[in-house]
């Protein structure tokens, strides 16, 4: 194993060409920073992307990289991971690439639980094509293609992933350096399909879309940091929490007889809870962290186990006898 790699070892010689101020810079920096800590030889790391601003990502990583076509990165990554299970395969996608044109591949990669690390940069806009609404844009949004406001009901990436039976579902924010690093490490260490939504600011076409969770002045009031085994507390003074009122979650103020004991305790292995938190939208706080993490067999391991088993029970493939099966006869 390569030792003592540093962030610089993962920086390619290509000039980064995102718009100045783009949230993608912050994400790139955290990924490059985390890479040396993962203990994976650089040559075994592959970044695969589709099309869109986020999908330029592989060019800037000094690893193996493949900038493919719109929406298809999970499918390309699948073929690579099945035949080369020892590789660390990352997929970089966006809200348009992953949830619109490539929605089919995303849900099936998650459903199969292929050991891919899928990073979905969600900026709720089409940036590369200069500002049309995306499948995560809010209803009513005025964009170049929706001058009268979008009438398109948006996807919630977290609940899409949960609905597709992803075994690891998390969310972070581009500017939350430490949290993002932690989530990247968690996503990496999970065996199976990891889905990490990264809320990312497009300062050109959708500036401030996630201000409530990224603006230092106000984010504490809007961001609910999920931590396994801990009560759901948030607020600048950590004085608010989530309590169940019958079957419905509600925000309560701590004090006046309400204590942390009354709050919901986060459990990453509870799918129902994950769905509930996944559906939190303002005025509820926006959860960040790991919604759901569970272990189930991965498709890539199962495929290779079947191949190994076939080799064990039938012996290695022998071409001569294979060709001579079936209805055969000899002519003298």
């Amino acid at each position: 194993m390569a030792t003592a790699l540093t962030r610089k070892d993962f920086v390619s010689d290509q000039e980064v060409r995102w718009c100045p101020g783009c949230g993608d810079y912050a994400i790139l920096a955290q990924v490059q920073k985390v890479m040396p800590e993962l203990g994976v030889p650089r040559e075994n790391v592959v970044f695969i992307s589709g099309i869109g601003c986020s999908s330029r990502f592989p060019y800037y990583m000094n690893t193996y990289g493949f900038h493919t076509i719109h929406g298809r990165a999970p499918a390309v990554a699948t073929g690579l991971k099945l035949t080369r299970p020892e590789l660390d395969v990352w997929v970089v996608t966006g809200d348009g690439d992953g949830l619109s044109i490539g929605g089919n591949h995303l849900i099936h990669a998650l459903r199969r639980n292929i050991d891919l690390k899928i990073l979905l940069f969600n900026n709720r806009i089409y940036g590369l094509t200069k500002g049309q609404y995306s499948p995560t844009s809010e209803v009513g949004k005025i964009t170049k293609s929706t001058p009268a406001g979008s009438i398109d009901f948006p996807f919630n990436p977290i609940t899409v992933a949960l609905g597709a039976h992803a075994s690891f579902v998390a969310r972070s924010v581009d500017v939350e350096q430490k949290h993002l690093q932690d989530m990247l490490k968690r996503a990496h260490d999970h065996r199976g399909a990891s889905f990490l939504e990264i809320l990312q600011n497009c300062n050109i076409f959708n500036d401030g879309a996630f201000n409530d969770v990224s603006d230092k002045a106000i984010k504490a009031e809007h961001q609910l940091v999920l931590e396994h085994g801990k009560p759901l507390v948030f607020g600048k003074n950590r004085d608010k929490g989530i309590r169940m009122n019958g079957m419905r979650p509600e925000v309560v103020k701590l004090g006046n007889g309400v204590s942390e004991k009354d709050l919901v305790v986060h459990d990453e292995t509870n799918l129902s809870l994950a769905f509930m938190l996944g559906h939190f939208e303002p005025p509820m706080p926006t959860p960040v962290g790991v919604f759901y993490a569970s272990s189930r067999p991965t498709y890539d391991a199962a495929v290779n186990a079947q191949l190994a088993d076939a080799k064990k029970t039938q012996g290695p493939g022998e071409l001569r006898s294979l060709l001579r099966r079936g209805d055969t006869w000899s002519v003298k």
Partner: protein
Amino acid sequence: MAVPPETAQQLAQESGSSGKRKPVETRPQFVVRFAGDSGDGMQLAGMQFTTESALAGNDIATLPDFPAEIRAPAGTLAGVSGFQVNFSSQQVFTPGDEPMVLVAMNPAALKVNLEDLKPNGVLIIDKEGFTEANLKKAGYTSNPLTDHSLDKYQVFEVEVSKLTTSAVRELGLNTRAVSRCRNFFVLGLVSWLFQRPTKSVTDYIESRFKKTPELMEANLRAFKSGYNYGETAELFASAYEVKPAQIAPGFYRNITGNSATALGFVAAAVKSGRPLFLGSYPITPASDVLHELSGYKNFPVYTFQAEDEIAGVASAIGAAFGGAIGITTTSGPGMNLKAEAIGLAVKVELPLVITDIQRAGPSTGMPTKPEQADLLMAMYGRHGESPIPIIAAATPADCFDCAFEAVRVAVKYMTPVILLTDGHLANGAEPWLVPDPEQLPEIKVEFRTDPNGFMPYLRDEQTLSRPWAIPGTPGLEHRIGGLSSEHLTGNVSYSPSNNEMMVRLRARKIAGIAREIPPTEIFGDAQGGELLLVGWGSTYGTLREAVLNLRAKGKSVSHVHLRWLNPLPADFGDILRRYKKVMVAEMNMGQLLKMIRADYLIDAVGCNKIQGRPFKVSEVESRILRALEG
């Protein structure tokens, strides 16, 4: 070859016949078609009869013809399924234009197939299938068995159900199970008629029904009683014999085009020392390749049934990026969906084989029927300048060689290759002289490992192919992608002149594959003549037979059958110019014709058919004769 004596005697004893055999008349060749409802097991009967005929030493060709519906309503015209076998003591090129023997299990089968039957042909009819209800479903207003409309044929009415029922009566099976033995009764009868060796059928029944002894016994009895019925009943005056053909010595296997395609890929992967990866989405008539390859995991073969056609090809590209032999299989509609990803493979220059098992289009068209109308899509059906080598198989067994060759070229030239077959080849079968794996060409895979001087687009001087540098190799970390890339480094580049250079380099690389194509074989007058018939793909046998027949009549007609359609052979233009007339026969509106006219400025004419059915030899002959007169 006659029935093995022990079998004949045994059958004769079991049937209690007098032992006096009926006379046997020798004929050079027969074409038999089995037709019935899609639930009648006619495909199985046809395939078993094919095996018997191969074992009898005949040369054979087959044509299955089945409906797209899995089970259309019983007794309807839409539900008719047929299987034609041509078996001969001479070389066989086609399944035959017209059956000489037609087995019709019901009125619908008769109605659909009768127009093809030769005048005075033998018609074997399951009389009990001709109920009033079935006649009505088939659209008959009067019963053809009684209205003299069949007078120009030799009609043999057999009570198949009654005879099958009495053969298996003691076994106490229900009516439905008994009915499902009828195909073996008929197979037995036809096996007797042509004095086929029967062991392959009884072996098949024994292995197929190993787990259900009562069904095994029932089918064996049905088969034997059908055979005995032929011998003893006052029905046929004589049996027929077709002597073995002159066939090159060796080990033979009866093989369909789809099986041969699958095996060709496995063989290529083995020869390259790399795993095979198939990414595919089920589609008629390509799915059998996926089924077959999924059984060869120990080679190793990865089969990935993808979520859609696009993921099928995209996953194969991903596997190729990782160093596997990546392939995808589909038919026309799937080709459309894969087009963008194929363009990516062209751009990033990774090896990949796309198999298009063509079917009649456009759109869903006639999924079980063959056509050759995807040629121009294979040539041009992508955005941008994206040339791809195209190879087309001529016969079911040829699918093996073409699949193998497609992989060899893909790897050597770091390019996607399109393999064209069609539904006719896919399901048709023929005897295949099984090759010795040692004699197959080597497929050299050399991954780049040396970081010294490595550049992703530094090309081989002769082939112009770029290095295959796979993830996991220290020091070769690099990025590839769909964006225009710089010569040598592969870095993203928007330089206008660089873009043109890269487009031209890729085009030159593909054109250079012509050096892999052996000199074109000309059947007929190599130095030139009146007319050259040009074809490609599954029309091979028909075209060859038509030319053979016309040459026997003294006509100056020659035949060239192309295997590589892109690039075209280097000597092809020169050959075309040696003939006064060039005719291009294809199951489309004239796609190769268009290419030939454009590339060589030759005033070639077309011979075309778009009916979801192969040409008949007679059709091609008359078209050629007309062209010769004109």
